[in-house]
């Protein structure tokens, strides 16, 4: 218990002190797999937007279909 409190304090102090910050833990050069086309949320935009359209026309739910951008930063 006491140790975990100390640990938390250390973490907080480190974040707050500015002498260190949380570094991105998956480095740009470690994104082989994330950059693989099979890892894309929408490999084929024409196809996925058509399928969303099929659902939207027949189901009451709408919105947040995904592919709002963003991704692996693997450029």
């Amino acid at each position, binding site marked *: 218990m*006491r140790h975990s409190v*100390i640990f938390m*304090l*250390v973490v907080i*102090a*480190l974040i707050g*002190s500015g*002498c*260190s910050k949380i570094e991105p833990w998956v*480095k*740009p*050069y*470690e*994104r*082989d*797999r994330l*950059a*693989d086309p099979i890892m894309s949320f929408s490999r084929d935009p024409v196809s996925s937007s058509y399928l969303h359209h099929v659902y939207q026309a027949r189901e009451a739910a709408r919105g947040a279909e995904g592919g709002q951008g963003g991704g692996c930063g*693997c*450029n």
Partner: protein
Amino acid sequence: MNTNYKRLLTALCLTGAMLFASTSQAAAVGGNAPDFTLKSKDGNNIKLNEYRGDVVMINFWASWCGPCRQEMPALEQLYSKYKDLGFVILGVNLDEDSNKAIAMLDKTSVSFPILFDETKQVSKLYNVSAMPTTFLLDRNGKLRYLHKAYKPGYEHKYAKQIKTLVRE
């Protein structure tokens, strides 16, 4: 309670010292380029410090990185244009599976040395934070320029800087 604070302070100092130690070694523009040895595509080991006296470009790239692939032909052109003036490019490949890089180079071949950093030790040492990342070193082994990512046209900047460095 008191001892806890002491412990806390010790932990803080230690962590801080460790962080400082690890970053002070890392590459920074203006400082010396950390030395490394990596296996090359030809099978022999290449040591950075052996190129002391040359202007060196270290280009961190991977076959899965689109802009890196795009940049390759431009790098090859720079290399063939300036190599006689004491300029070399070390293409440090970061593919997890170097066979993928070799397959790519079969199609887009380059004549400068390609090195494999499969364990990513050198990438960590150079704090690679974008793909591709390109460093330019002067003849004394000092890191002079740093370029993150690549967009068409960057090769003109590279050329200018290479010209400056080879003249020094």
